[in-house]
């Protein structure tokens, strides 16, 4: 038997939720023990909302959000003066902005964030420079790294219709080069709006204070006509897909992607636990079987993409020089087939649940993590998921693991990328 933990009460994250008249959802987490406050604004827009001929735009736009707003020419200066720091990220689903600031100066956060939600400065020169910066980012992350282009190759292999077929950085550099100020304006007014965002404030603040400040700074921003999302549904994959490339990289690499349901699907957590069983820590199945015992891989892992629309389970690893990709793939299938054939021991499942519980507890000690988790839970339809999800994980059974493994790990549901090292 393994120690079974029931995780409740002491993990509860307190929060309050209210909605402004213009549709902005506000969540507040009070924590009087910290001197800091965090502000997180999640806009419900990502690379999936882009036009196929203008990919990379949501991310380029994120850069422009720091280039001055209607009444404030410089975003960073005043924030730094107030002792704050900030960052942002764009994914295929969302664009998320966050700042950390000494709690007594939180109003500066409201001032800055509300002004750029109200309207950007839209300056041609700034756009031109940020295009260059993003192109350098493209080179640094995707082109000037060994295997850096894997997702540029893999996405169009697994997605044929759904806009997940391009990465957030964009399909090609040209799309970034072509973006015009008109496009930027249009994108802003159709996606950046109080009724298309949620605001989380966490830390040494009170609900009453946040209510007052939210009303004062965000209350007057008009509701906007947000473009309705109407994305093509990815047709069901019916046969195995495969792509072979050869590049100047040091070792062969195998990547296998399998279609899975979206983040809100009741089976999502089972998928997440399956990849933990496969890939979390030194005792996991892939590492033990393929790196330690057979030594076919020098490195191997598995993970889920927790995306808003149906996503992927990915297994990937670097192949040892003494083996071929075909042999490596066969060995991966043996591990996956085992999950489909035999119910895993109760203790093994409990083990990954316990570990997840410890990780979660460490993660929830940061107000920034709490704020971001509240924001994504709210986006998924229920902010309280932050408190209920661990229970859901606890309820997953070994039968669920068997059932879901059998559904997902099928050849006709897979896309395989064989990435060969060019022989010199």
């Amino acid at each position, binding site marked *: 038997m*393994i*120690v079974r*933990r029931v995780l409740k009460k*002491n*993990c509860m994250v307190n929060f309050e939720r209210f909605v402004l008249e213009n549709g902005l959802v506000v969540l507040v987490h009070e924590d009087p*023990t*910290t*001197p*800091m406050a965090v502000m997180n604004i999640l806009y419900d827009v990502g690379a999936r909302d882009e036009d196929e001929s203008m990919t990379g735009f949501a991310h380029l736009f994120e850069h422009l959000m720091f280039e001055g707003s*209607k*009444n*404030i020419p410089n975003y*960073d*200066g005043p924030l*730094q*003066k*107030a*002792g704050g*720091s900030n960052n942002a990220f764009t994914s295929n689903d969302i664009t998320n902005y966050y700042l950390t*600031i*000494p709690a*007594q*100066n939180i*109003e*500066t956060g409201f*001032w800055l964030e*509300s*002004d750029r939600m*109200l309207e950007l400065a839209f300056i041609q020169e700034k756009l031109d*420079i940020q295009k*260059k*910066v993003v192109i*350098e*980012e493209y*080179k*640094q992350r995707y082109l*000037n790294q*060994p295997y850096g282009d894997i997702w540029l190759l893999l996405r169009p292999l697994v997605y044929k219709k759904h806009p997940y077929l391009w990465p957030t950085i964009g399909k090609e550099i040209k799309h970034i080069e072509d973006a015009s100020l008109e496009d930027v304006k249009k994108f802003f007014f159709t996606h950046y709006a109080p009724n298309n965002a949620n605001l989380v404030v966490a830390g040494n603040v009170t609900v009453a204070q946040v209510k007052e400040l939210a009303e*004062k*700074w965000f209350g007057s921003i008009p509701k906007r006509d947000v473009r309705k999302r109407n994305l093509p549904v990815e047709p069901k994959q019916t046969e195995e897909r495969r792509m072979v490339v050869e590049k*100047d*990289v*040091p*070792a062969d690499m195998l990547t296998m992607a399998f279609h899975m349901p979206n983040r809100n699907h009741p089976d999502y957590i089972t998928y997440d636990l399956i990849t933990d069983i496969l890939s979390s*820590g*030194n*005792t996991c199945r892939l590492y033990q079987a393929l*790196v*330690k015992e057979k*030594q076919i891989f*020098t*490195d191997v892992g598995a993970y889920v993409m927790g995306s808003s629309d149906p996503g992927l389970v990915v297994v990937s690893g*670097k192949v040892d020089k003494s083996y071929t990709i075909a042999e490596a793939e066969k060995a991966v299938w043996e591990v996956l087939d085992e999950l489909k054939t035999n119910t895993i021991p109760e203790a093994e499942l409990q*083990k990954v649940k316990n*570990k997840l519980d*410890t990780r979660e*507890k*460490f993660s*929830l*000690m940061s107000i920034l993590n709490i704020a971001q988790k509240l924001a994504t839970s709210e986006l998924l339809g229920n902010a309280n998921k932050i408190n209920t999800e661990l229970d859901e994980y606890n309820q997953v059974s070994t039968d669920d693991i068997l059932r879901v493994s059998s559904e997902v790990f099928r050849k006709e549901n897979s896309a395989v990328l064989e990435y060969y090292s060019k022989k010199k």
Partner: protein
Amino acid sequence: MTNRTLQPEISHQYNFDLIDPDKHTLKNGVDIYYIQGGKQDVCRMDVLYKAGNIFESKNLLSSITNDLLGEGTLNKTSLQLNDAFDFYGAYIQRESSRDYAGVSLFASDKHLSNLMPLLLEVLLESSYPQHEFDIYLKNRKARYEDNLRKVEFVCRNEFTGMIYGEHPYGKPLRPEHFSEITRDEINAWYLQHYVQQIPVVFVTGRVEEESKKVIADAFAKLSGSKIEFPILSFINPSPGEYMMEQEGVIQSAIRVGRSIVTIEHEDYTSLSVANTILGGYFGSRLMKNIREEKGYTYGIGSGLVSFEKNGIWMIAAEVGKDVTANTLKEIYKEIDILSKEKVEEDEMEIVKNYILGNYIKSIDGAFNQADKIKITTLRGLHKDFYKDQILKILATTPDDVMNIVNKYFTKEHLVELVVGGK
């Protein structure tokens, strides 16, 4: 109507104090520091040894010994030991650096009585089985070969070598180091630096009184001695411009910098301010010029690092090959301006407030405070060291900045390395 053009009032009234850790010294000399706090019933236990690169006669000794701690012990295989930690939802992280190396245990306080014997097994009974060593070395080498294709890695690897020469702080990792190292050398290093040395222990989080007894009982079983850091001389690096051409790359990695004084030195606070102005935050002069005005790079920054016996100051960036020469020109131009023109009060204020806010964030909660307390404790600094530093930073004048730039950042002292092309 809300006036949106004016920044709301700000204040900088802060509490700079660190928690006073609760120190227990065991009979065998092991010091255990408790830093209580945190909202969840979990704790982190850092067990730190003087076992970093500085002791190495050969590259890889410190990191391999550390990475393979507990990967096989006298009585358990690697899998059995890791499974035993997993059983309680606990996990360990191994970490080695220039001066220290050690293990951190992440666990729930209530399982410590079961976990401490396992942790002791890691610290005292690791057996370094040959096959574990072989697999590790093979995979580590594969990772290294991967890294050699990254301009950023090559630049980092070579740059510290240029700064430190043969001193173990800087020796670049080479392919032959992988074939020169043996399992027996690792085992010998383990005995010398772990088994025969007593560590310093920091326990952070929520720990009940009875657990403290469990922890003390466990560490009472250690029987090593305390050791000192070696005094090694540093060569004088040869400042100048160096270039390593890399075929087929589209960006160059740039590093410009030098060895420099450590945090205890009286110049350090002025250096911190000067460094922040130049490249230490998003609004820095280098970011403004090279990213926000020219669009040459995704990011450029500068930083100060303090090891036990020396420090490094450097500027780092990855930039398009075609703009590498221009980037370097702009870097020296910005240094030159700082050395000749006094920084305006407004910029001083922004930078000081940024450093201040960052400091307050860095001492938020027990786990963040622990990181600061570890440094003051291990370096033997006064408990108000950081508070004093912050007060000194707030008192730094534009003249101080100019003087420090002229003293340390001048081109004749700097090593410049470009990996890629220009």
